[in-house]
């Protein structure tokens, strides 16, 4: 399972900054502090990622098999 979280801000131009992450001089803000909302956005996303799948997903595997058989 991959849990690729967001890049910190300031890595926008990966090519230009390749291998020099975090160097001063681009649009980095003082201290490179991320605004609170950026973290909030990831939290919002991750909170859903970490939710257990609801019961409505129990049948999904069966549905997949059915879809497979219908196609075959």
């Amino acid at each position, binding site marked *: 399972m991959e849990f*690729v979280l967001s890049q910190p801000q300031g890595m926008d131009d990966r090519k230009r900054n390749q291998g020099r992450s975090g160097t001063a001089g681009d649009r980095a803000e003082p201290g490179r502090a991320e605004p609170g909302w950026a973290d909030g956005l990831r939290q919002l996303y991750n909170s859903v*990622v970490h939710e257990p799948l609801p019961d409505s997903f129990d049948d999904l595997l069966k549905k997949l098999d059915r879809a497979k058989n219908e196609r075959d």
Partner: protein
Amino acid sequence: MSVTEGSVAHDDEVFKRDLLTVLPHLRAFARGLCGRPDFADDLVQETAIKAWTARERFTPGTNMRAWTFAILRNHFLSELRRNRHQADYDPDSAERLLVMEADQEAPLHLSDMEVALMKLSPERREALLLVGAGGFTYEEAAKISDCAVGTMKSRVARARDQLARLLDPERDTITVEHEKA
């Protein structure tokens, strides 16, 4: 069973396992896109079935999450157009609908972040979800959204600015660090 059949069966099992693994991410993306948990979960399940029936088009070893996100995204847009979940609205009103729902205090209990997110245009919201939350590169996100990389970069930048203003109107003035001194 022939060797070929056995290997197809094996591939199917690997595909299914990987597909199930990305479901939580699909739920998070869908929830962010449409803001409605019930609709989001419908989208995810339908996406999973679409992905499964199209599995021969998936290149093993490539990014399952990106591949399924693109399916979900296209499905979401066509559902909006088909207007399944709302009586009678055209594509242009989809955005208004989302904004309207976010502005209403009930029935959903939305965090400030969710409310602000729903105020973004669908393109910007999607861009921010993919890059800012989902951790995709601009290149991957552009592919998912079927747009140019430059377009994706500008959507993300604008979405970030707008969200920052919505959530933290005084952000630009916060440079003082010695208030207590």
